């Protein structure tokens, strides 16, 4: 594929993002981030995680800056002390576990989201990552290299959240889910669109299992790995989320506390389920007086978008399926043509038929590769956005809940006032004080409710704006990549048939 091969490290995306001040200056932060991104010559490819080998880093990591704000987390300060800047030195510190986790540069380098033209090598890639997985006892561990290069200096209070320029850690699938669940519980109710984590079971997304070899298990691993990569990318690209200590810890710490709350039958898991059910019921009963037309419009828009994207996703999934079938049938025909060539007693025709068989075999590979591109570029993009839009809709619901809470507080305040008035008349001075206190309390709650509502509305507007921008960029980049994959296929087809043509003409 002619896709841009240069691999701007994730860092250049995070670079701009890492230049922040306190979260309160959120808006300025946002702007500066945006401008940094726009002005960067090699724009980061959001859909693909750029992987850089620790060893093959020809650019050389710039030295990380460690101007750290004192207000930062203690955890953060600690981390600084422990770890040195020097790349070679850091490895022994980071790798508490067995060194294969960090050193296997080659396999991790292969675990890149780019789809190589020689994807024929894919099965062997999978084998290795599978071995990695099998080596670790129990559970699915993924080696992910995220390279974060240094932030550029913007203003005097620039700080670096990350200590080194490059590091790698091992994470379980459940760790990812745990991260998401923490982020969701912290940010969604105040209006931030938290990127959804990949679902626990991604099985059944493709309908056709390639019959030739059982690639289904390796496909599953690759699918999952790719999904996790995209999830992380989206999370770190979020200006607020990247600052979150949980995110930083996730990316940096050598050991994470086991995320127990993601287990299905845990107490926390059950609590989540109950909350989800409660939410669903509430949504039906809340009738909000929408004063702001913007929100109504947007909700409708997202509803439509959701429908269309789902439909498109289904169509593309069908395309993947059919292309896989085409690949299988082409291979089968190739074999048959070879047999026919063998049987043919006219020498020149026999040779031509064998050549035809070879061409068809190569074309079968092409179809396979194209099916990968269809899936990993196009289909997965759509799937991701279907889930993202669900998150967006969730955030709108949160706003409704916040409004509802505010309204409830107002109702309660009114009740308290009425109660106080009654007590006044009944002349019970001792209870009166309590009533007055309660009124004060609820006045406060009403004010808070209003503030919360305004805040969440503001946040959502910002988030939606950001989301739309990201979406346009994201789609454009991935679509271009996908189209380039199609171009590549056509180029190869031309090559193969042009090579065959003289063979056909040679039949005498």
């Amino acid at each position, binding site marked *: 594929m002619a896709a841009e091969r240069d691999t701007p490290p994730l860092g250049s995306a995070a670079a701009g993002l890492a230049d922040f001040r306190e979260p309160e200056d959120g808006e300025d932060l946002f702007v500066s981030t945006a401008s940094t991104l726009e002005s960067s010559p090699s724009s980061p490819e959001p859909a693909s995680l750029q992987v850089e080998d620790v060893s093959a880093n020809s650019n050389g990591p710039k030295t990380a800056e460690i101007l750290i704000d004192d207000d930062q987390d203690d955890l953060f300060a600690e981390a600084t002390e422990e770890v040195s800047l020097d790349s070679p030195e850091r490895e022994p510190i980071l790798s508490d576990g067995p060194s294969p986790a960090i050193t296997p540069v080659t396999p991790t380098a292969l675990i890149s989201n780019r789809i190589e033209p020689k994807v024929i090598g894919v099965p062997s890639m999978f084998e290795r990552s599978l071995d990695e997985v099998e080596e670790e006892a129990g559970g699915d561990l993924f080696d992910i290299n995220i390279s974060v290069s240094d932030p550029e200096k913007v203003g005097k209070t620039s700080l670096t959240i990350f200590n080194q320029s490059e590091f790698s850690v091992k994470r379980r699938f459940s760790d990812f889910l745990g991260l998401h669940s923490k982020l969701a519980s912290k940010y969604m109710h105040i209006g931030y669109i938290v990127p959804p984590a990949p679902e626990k079971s991604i099985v059944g997304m493709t309908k056709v299992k390639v019959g030739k070899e059982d690639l289904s298990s390796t496909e599953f691993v690759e699918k999952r790995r790719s999904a996790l990569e995209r999830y992380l990318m989206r999370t770190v690209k979020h200006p607020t989320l990247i600052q979150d200590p949980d995110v930083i810890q996730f990316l940096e710490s050598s050991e994470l506390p086991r995320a127990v709350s993601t287990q299905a039958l845990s107490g926390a898991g059950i609590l989540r389920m109950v909350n989800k059910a409660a939410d669903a019921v509430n949504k039906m009963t809340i009738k909000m007086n929408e004063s702001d037309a913007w929100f109504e419009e947007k909700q409708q*828009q997202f509803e*439509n*978008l959701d429908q*269309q*994207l789902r*439909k*498109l996703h289904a*169509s*593309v999934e*069908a*395309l993947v399926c*059919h*292309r896989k*079938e*085409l690949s299988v*049938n*082409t291979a*089968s*025909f190739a*074999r*048959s*043509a070879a*047999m*026919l060539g*063998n*049987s*043919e*007693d*006219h020498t*020149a*025709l026999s040779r*031509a*038929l064998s050549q*035809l068989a070879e061409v068809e075999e190569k074309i079968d590979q092409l179809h396979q590769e194209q099916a990968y591109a269809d899936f990993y570029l196009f289909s997965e993009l759509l799937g991701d956005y279907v889930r993202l839009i669900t998150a967006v809709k969730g955030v709108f619901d949160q706003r409704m809940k916040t409004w509802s809470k505010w309204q409830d507080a107002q109702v309660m305040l009114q009740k308290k006032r009425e109660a106080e008035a009654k007590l006044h008349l009944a002349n019970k001075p001792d209870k009166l004080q309590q009533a007055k206190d309660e009124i004060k309390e609820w006045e406060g709650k009403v004010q808070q409710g209003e503030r919360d509502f305004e805040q969440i509305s503001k946040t959502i507007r910002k988030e939606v704006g950001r989301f*739309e921008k990201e*979406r*346009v960029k994201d*789609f*454009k980049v991935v*679509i*271009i990549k996908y*189209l*380039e994959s*199609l*171009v590549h296929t*056509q*180029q190869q*087809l*031309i090559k193969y*048939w*042009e090579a*065959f*043509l003289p063979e*056909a*003409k040679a*039949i005498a």
Partner: protein
Amino acid sequence: MSSSFLPLSEEMFQARSVSVDLNNDASLLIDIPDALCERDKVKFTVHTKTTLGTFQKPEFSVSRQHEDFIWLHDTLVETEEYAGLIIPPAPPKPDFESPREKMHKLGEGEASMTKEEYAKMKQELEAEYLAVFKKTVQVHEIFLQRLSSHPVFSKDRNFQIFLEYDQDLSVRRKNAKEMFGGFFKNMVKTADEVLISGTKEVDEFFDQEKTFLLDYFSKIKDATSKAEKMTRSHKNVADDYIHVSATLNSLSAEDSTPLKHLEKLADLFEKLRKVEGRVASDQELKLTELLRYYMRDIQAAKDLLYRRARALADYENANKALDKARLKSKDVAQAQQHQQQCLQKFDTLSESGKKELTSFKGRRVLAFRKNLIEMAELEIKHAKSNMALLQGCVELLKSN
């Protein structure tokens, strides 16, 4: 649903010789310039131009049905004198089953599609229908042209009747005896398979031919069915592009943010699917049809071998009968004459069979060459169009 399809009769099909350069001899030129589709029946217009005096007029046309072609083929098969010739394979029955079924499914799924999508799918189906139609015309035409270009068949009386008789042939067709004869003939064929493989072959040429044809037949049959599957998958992919394009259109129409590139993308997929559709149908014509045709032709060659094997068996039986007669000293002259006849028949068969099989190979090689070249050229052409479309779109998207 299917009634909304016609009319295709207005179309003029250009004569095309897919396989071999037939229809070269100006003394008898045949083509099927158009055909009519009436409900389930296809009516072919057979047009003849001739300089031969055996015909009443120099140029004329008649209307024929598929069954008329079958009748003609069967009469040729049953003609003793033609036992040593490869009888051109009968054209297969026009089969609109596949597009008809798809049309039905389309009707059922109409509710779930946008108007545009439905219109495009219908368009695609109509194109498929047309392709089947063209294929069947072609295959019937080639059958006649094979006959007209053959020194012996072109003079066949029934062939002349077929071409010239300006009324319905159905009366002749419905001759019960002929129909029964045809049925019997097919039954015997399977017994011949055993016969042909069992007979000891003295003649090296026929020995080789037998081995070759039996093996080649099974391979080409397999290749035909695999090619069919492959072509069908290709069509499925082209159809998927329609759905993708349609949904992209809806998306771009509804989206408030100026996602201009969705519209371009939708347009691209619409153009791509047309090219993909052509790739699929060209592949079908040049590859699948080629294989299918020669599979039938090889069957016809095998039939020649059967007839020869039967003649050999007859001869050997006649020999045995002669020996018996000599032993008994009874009807020796009769037996001798019969034996001579059988020998003569066998020799004639062998001689003409050899000629036919040799020219058959030449024909086959030429046809493969022509079609493989054409297919490769078309594939290259379509891939280049695709590439131009794709690159254009990528440029457009990148420049925004």
